[in-house]
């Protein structure tokens, strides 16, 4: 689509939406949100980009093969499950590491977070792969 308004707005929106997707993913740990919805939001940013600048531009901007990103996401999710192996707990058991970087402010790293990031990447990769395939089929 050749529209100056769309292209200008897209430049601004894509970065904003991507940032928002990360926010939603991280927030999802204790509140509504999470990797899946975050991944969809990020994918919609890429979809907007491909509408404004074309599929080829998206392919260049994304750099990686989307299927590889999806595979990486699944791998991250599996690793988050495997981390409970050394902890003598069943597969996928949630484990937490809590730091106190600033006094009074708890900062937690956990395997569910890692799992969520895996889901996030899988969804982005999967949706973009589908999108590229559909657009290339020449609708």
């Amino acid at each position, binding site marked *: 689509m050749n529209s100056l308004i769309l292209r200008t707005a897209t430049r601004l929106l894509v970065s904003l939406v991507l940032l928002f997707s990360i926010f939603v993913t991280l927030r999802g740990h204790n509140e509504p949100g999470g990797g899946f919805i975050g991944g969809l939001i990020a994918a919609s940013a890429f979809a907007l980009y491909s509408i404004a600048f074309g599929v080829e531009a998206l392919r260049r901007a994304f750099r990686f093969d989307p*299927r*590889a990103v999806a*595979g990486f996401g*699944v791998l991250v999710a599996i690793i988050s499950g495997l981390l409970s192996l050394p902890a*003598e707990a069943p597969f*996928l058991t*949630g484990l937490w590491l809590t730091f106190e970087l600033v006094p009074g402010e708890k900062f937690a790293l956990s395997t569910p977070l890692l799992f969520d990031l895996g889901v996030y990447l899988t969804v982005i990769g999967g949706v973009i792969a589908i999108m590229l395939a559909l657009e290339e089929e020449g609708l």
Partner: protein
Amino acid sequence: MTPMFWQWVLAAPIVLPLAGGAIGFLAIRRVGIAQAATLLASIGTLLAAILLFGEVRQSGALVMQASRWDAPFGITLVADGLSALLVMLAAAVGLGVQLHAMRTVDQEERRFGFFPLFHLLLAGANGAFLTGDIFNLYVWFEVTLIAGVGLLALGQSKPQVDATLKYVAINLVGTTIYLIATGLLYGATGSLNMADISARLLTEPDSGTLGAIGLLFVFSLALKSAAFPLFFWLPAAYHTPSVAVSAVFAGIVTKVGAYALLRVVVLVFSPKAEMFVDVILWIAILTLLVGGIGALVQRDLRRLLSYALVAGIGYILLGLGIGTAESLGGGIFYAAHHIVLMTTFFLLAGHVAGVAGSFSLDRMGGLLDRQTFLAILFFVAIVALSGLPPLGGFWAKAWLIKAALAAGSWFAAGAALVSGLLVLIALGQAWAMIFWRKGPASSDTPAALRLPSLAPTVALLILAVAMGLHPEPWLDISARAAAALLDVEGYQATVLGGRR
């Protein structure tokens, strides 16, 4: 070995192929890495599955509460005799097909992710065999299906696109109906854990609601396992993709549906199972006959095998339909044998087509002189499948027919015999057309197949033949799997009672 170790062995047949598939996708532009990773995953899965099987056989069912959420709240993985047996054979067959595929699948399909998809499919099938949660079973169905559809469409030839469309449409409807049944069952019982549901159904009065839910399950799972009258999608799809894909579909994917049917009827609906057993008996009888008759008229080798496969599903369901411990054991033995043998058969079909240049029986002939070894292999496979002594099909069928007669269902015994005869005639005719009759005079005569390319097929055939020549351990395994399947209270105690 600590209990924790065995819990991880229990998860391995799901985790390893999934990891192999993930690495395969990650390295999608480097086919070599994808191949190596998936091969390692195949070997690892087989080792884990053998360990798991040995442990389950020695000391009973294993349970893992994933992420330490106890049953019935979390997702439980359970390996009882039946699950462990199926996982082990699926892993063996998976490795065989993997080795075969590494020699035969063409570059185009490798680049589009044949190996990762294949492993996703194996992970899905193993997940379905091992899960103890009825909704999780739906998820694994879908994983299997998505990977399967991806494999089915890989070559993108016109017949494949057509077959994929039909396969997708009917299977989507089937899984959606399964989901409807699961949702209704959840609404009626308030649980998704299979052991928990069966315990709750004990106190539930018989009602139309439960009957309807059960029939929805039977309908969707019969569709998935290609039973009469919903089998048409199978011969319409299995003859189009590459041989490795047909083989793994025939060996593993159809068994997932049949396994789920056994599990749902015998375990989940154990207090109400009489409601459906008669229906399943007739479904099984008609499946047997329609598979045999269908096989007789096919002119395409893989379509012929597809109908023989449908007949085989009939035998497995017959074990359920007769509904005694005896018949279930026979059905399970048949299923185990069928996994190995059907895969081998489709791989053999690929070898035959490789030397004949076509899957069409009309264009084949005269291969006996040049491909004597292949002819012998094919002949042995026919003997094993159609139930001639002393190979595997015979023992399973004899057991089933004995159980049918003991239960007084003459019809079932008759259908089993007739179907076996029809399949034998169809396959015998195919053998005669491929190998025996005079071939078309062609200038390019491919050399005899060398052993390396045949090795995976031969290994699987040896496994199938060994199951027939030395059937005692397998008969014992199947009988014990059937007994464990019927021991619903024991299963409930294992799953809900926490760790053993």
